[in-house]
């Protein structure tokens, strides 16, 4: 789903999910029909812990590091860590491989590398500072 612009950003803002036990992400499949099962799981997991300003950016055709980058915010550091904690649990429970994490224990910026999808969870001020969305939206190779 390449909705807006060259990068294909698809913004979801904090929809409620009634069930934090992600065993079958049917509800996620209804909400994100164009996303693969891994990214649907990620998006559902983030929402289940009330992550905010969730943005999904497709990297297909743009970069080989992953298929997708998903960015979300937690209100405070403890929230950021809880979101990342739950995300890793959900991924592992569903047999997805988590290559690594960076950013603990500070909770300013936590990166979860799930190979095909890379997830960044930020505190809001930190997210603004780094502005990863601007990085991925900026022009490619040039002067």
């Amino acid at each position, binding site marked *: 789903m390449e909705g807006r612009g060259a990068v294909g950003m698809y913004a979801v803002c904090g929809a409620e999910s009634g069930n934090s036990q992600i065993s079958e992400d049917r509800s996620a499949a209804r909400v994100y029909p164009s996303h693969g099962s891994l990214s649907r799981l990620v998006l559902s997991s983030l929402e289940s812990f009330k992550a905010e300003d969730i943005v999904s950016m497709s990297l297909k055709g743009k970069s080989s590091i992953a298929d997708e980058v998903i960015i979300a915010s937690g209100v405070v550091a403890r929230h950021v860590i*809880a979101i990342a904690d739950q995300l890793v*649990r959900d991924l592992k429970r569903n047999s997805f491989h988590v290559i*690594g*994490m960076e950013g603990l224990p500070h909770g300013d910026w936590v990166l979860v590398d799930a190979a095909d999808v890379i997830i960044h969870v930020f505190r809001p001020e930190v997210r603004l500072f780094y502005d990863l969305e601007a990085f991925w939206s900026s022009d*490619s190779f040039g002067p």
Partner: protein
Amino acid sequence: MYRIQECKTRGYGRPVGLLGGSFNPAHLGHRHISLRALHRLGLREIWWVVTPGNPMKNAQELKSFATRSVFAEKVSDHPHIHICHFEYERGLVYTSHSLMALRAAHRDFSFVWIMGADNLVSFHLWDDWRGIMKTVPVAIFDRPGYRYRALSSPAATAYRAFRVREEEDAGNFAFRSAPAWSFFTGPLNSLSSTYLRSIEGDGGRGISV
């Protein structure tokens, strides 16, 4: 005669670690390996050598040098990590060339080439990779999932005689004569790897902050 002179001059220069890459984008993993290198190897500085990139190869993927280096400045956020424009300013694309040019430009520094274990896996495909091994000591830092592939890689195998056993105090690593390489393990990321292991099989109880 010249080589001996060169070794003596270079032996105790300012120890600087070089982390090369596209930094597309820079992220906390780059910062993490840099801090590990600073502490384990007793380096004074780490330079993030941002490649200008090959316009033929990655025109679509690579963000502009300006974008990548500005973002890298934000992410590095450390008084001893510097964003290095050396390759960009000279249009250098191959590490083998850059290392020789850097050494010539900074004769009073002792450089260490730093890589993650994932880079070692395919290092034998780099341009003049043997030249790199013979030019500077190489420090490789473990990354989850890559350790065994790295240590059994063609490059590791070819230079197995020059591997330096990991020491508690590797503070003089930058002063070693090339070829010399070492594989550094230790806590991959003090909290992250412990945490990830703790929830294997869903046994963990989560992080208490």
